[in-house]
């Protein structure tokens, strides 16, 4: 395989006509409205220039015009696949500014919801990655299971996709009586499908041929580009904010951080990034099981919600949390009124996408699509 790569590189240095191809913004596999300007030499990609901003919805401007609780729905719409995980760092940031202590029960529900949403996100990530490789059926298996998770969230929050469920100091609603049982049932289904997809897709010979040894991201480059989440862990860096910069109650749970090991190809290739997501789903299941067992039944989820929200003037905080895609941070600056002075969202996908031109050079055009899929971006978060 290395030999092939060498031939590809030698070939790409030959004198020949190059073609500029415009991939997107309307293209089936750019995961939204990303536009890539690609220079190809035959089938070999020699240059990639991402053009973003086709979904720039002025999030930061809106934050300046809204009060603190009003920002939460806009936060949802950043990474719309994992809205619960988005709300959490923002809510935590404002809670820290106001120095609110969140009730125990709320913390547990937040953990369960965030981990469920992490599973839902990884299901979409792996499903669309398979779709990029041409496998359509696993996509539908994952989407079938994702519905079970969405039903739980819908029963709790009233919405299917964008929840507005985490409020500052509490939650919008308490959970319903059969919540714990349904969560455990959903996990059982998730595990069943994961085992099936492992056979059907992940260890499929064609799939390994397609995804191993392409898009290799070395660990030092990943850190220099500030990649995080499965993109960084796929390169073998054992770093997870839930353990390394722990927040909320994650120190009470026992779970592993899966990293890429270069099992079928080189360390840090597309297959490694993908398998990390598969293993992370299992870890999330473990966390949810422990959280469900420890969660107190009584308690008011709204008791700590402040009536008046005015953080001290000049106070500012950068709060980050482990989004399914990586580190999502909110930099909140207060000016003493009920509206924030400035909120900057450090979009995970925005940062992870910036590494694409580096890791996709010298591979084939078909690989470019897979490399993009393996980074798992959401354009709402890239463009904000």
């Amino acid at each position, binding site marked *: 395989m290395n030999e*092939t790569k060498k031939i590809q590189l030698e070939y790409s240095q030959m004198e020949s006509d190059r*073609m500029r*191809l415009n991939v997107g913004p309307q*293209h*089936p*596999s750019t995961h939204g409205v990303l536009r890539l300007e690609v220079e190809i030499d035959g*089938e070999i990609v020699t240059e990639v220039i991402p053009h973003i901003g086709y979904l720039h919805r002025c999030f930061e401007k809106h934050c300046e015009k809204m009060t603190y609780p009003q920002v939460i729905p806009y936060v949802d719409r950043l990474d719309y696949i994992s809205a619960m995980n988005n709300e959490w760092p923002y809510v935590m940031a404002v809670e820290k500014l106001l120095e609110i202590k969140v009730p125990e029960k709320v913390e547990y529900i937040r953990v369960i919801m965030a981990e469920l949403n992490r599973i839902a996100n990884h299901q979409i990530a792996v499903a669309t990655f*398979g*779709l*990029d*490789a*041409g*496998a*359509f*059926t696993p996509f*539908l*298996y994952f989407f*079938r299971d994702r519905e079970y998770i969405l039903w739980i969230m819908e029963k709790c929050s009233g919405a299917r996709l964008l929840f507005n469920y985490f409020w500052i100091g509490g939650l919008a609603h308490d959970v319903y009586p059969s919540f714990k049982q349904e969560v455990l049932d959903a996990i059982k289904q998730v595990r069943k499908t994961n085992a099936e997809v492992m056979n*059907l*897709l992940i260890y*499929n010979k*064609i*799939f390994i*041929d*397609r995804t191993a040894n392409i898009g290799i991201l070395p660990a030092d480059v990943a850190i220099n580009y500030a990649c995080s989440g499965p993109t960084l862990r796929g390169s073998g860096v054992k770093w997870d904010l839930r353990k390394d910069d722990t927040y909320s109650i994650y120190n009470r749970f026992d779970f592993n951080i899966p990293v890429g090991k270069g099992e079928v190809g080189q360390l840090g290739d597309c297959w490694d990034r993908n398998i990390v997501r598969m293993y992370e789903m299992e870890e999330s299941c473990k966390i949810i099981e422990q959280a469900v067992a420890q969660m107190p039944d009584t308690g008011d989820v709204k008791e700590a919600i402040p009536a008046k929200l005015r953080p001290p003037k000049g106070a500012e905080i950068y709060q980050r949390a482990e989004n399914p895609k990586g580190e999502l941070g909110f930099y909140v600056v207060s000016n003493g009124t009920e509206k924030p002075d400035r909120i900057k969202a450090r979009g995970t996908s925005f940062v992870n996408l910036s590494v694409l031109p580096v890791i996709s050079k010298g591979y*084939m*055009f*078909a*690989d*470019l*699509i897979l490399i993009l899929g393996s980074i798992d971006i959401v354009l709402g978060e890239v463009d904000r």
Partner: protein
Amino acid sequence: MGETNFLIKLLGDNLITVLLISALPLGFLVVYALLAILGELKISAWMQERVGPMRTGWKGVLQPLAEVIKLIQKEDITPDAANKPLYNLAPYIVFTGAYAAFAVIPFSEFFVPSGINLGLFYIFAVGSIGAIGIVMGGWASNNKYTLLGAMRSVAQLISYEIPGAMAILSIAVLSSSLNMQEINKAQTGWFWNWFMFGGPGSYEKLWVIPFTLGLTLIYMIASLAETNRTPFDIPEGESELVAGYHTEYSGMKFAMFFFAEYANMFVVAAVLVTAFMGGWNSPFGSFLSGPLWGAFWFIGKSFFVIFVQIWLRWTLPRLRVDQLMYLGWKILLPVSFICFLFVSLFRMLN
């Protein structure tokens, strides 16, 4: 000429008969294409825990008909920058290539439009016409995606024709004929007389069975590549090339491409059935054999092969273009040569 067509026997050798003989496969093709489209929709739905089209007629059986009625009405766009004569001609050439192959396909013992002695050779010859149409359409559209799709398609077709042809050549050696009717007749009897299982013969044929089975597999894989089906659908790989060589086509011209793809699927299935699976012979000796049963078995077996093609499409991911070439030139070709060598040895020693 091989067998006289039964229509000629029935109606005499006149113009009406000739027209009828050429029109019957077309009629069959239309019905078959509609069935195959419906089958593709329904089988994929069934494999993915869906229901598929439901609201067009009973359980959606009229869906392909609606598609055709819609496609006839669609606007026919010719891009400004396209090379108009080539652009307009391409779909018809692709379809002609697929339809011409029907001339030698033996539907039953008594119906083959033209029983020429070089049947298999003819199929491989006209099968390559499609590639010309594809590259014409892809180039004339003046679009980078279609050009890439067309280039890939031609490279793929040429590479996979060789192992496919080697597989068929082995059958020609075994049956000592290129006439498709003769090949079918050589396989009369129970299903172990099929060339897939070494052809007719006694116990000494046992050691050639692995090679003939291998050749069947090789032809199956090569036929998938020739019809641009997953896992070899890179010329129209949706995830990278939008829609491949037919990106710019709309309306009825697109329908022609669509139609030709399904026709090609049937042609390769028919060749596979004829060469390896006994053609119109009943698998159970003389049980259920006869003129009409022959057509039944032939079409039934072909549909089974098409079902396998659809099944694979919805199960496997897609290969990359260099891996496809690697598979074609470095694995399938040597293996097919080895199989051919042993089959020839077997033939020589007997």
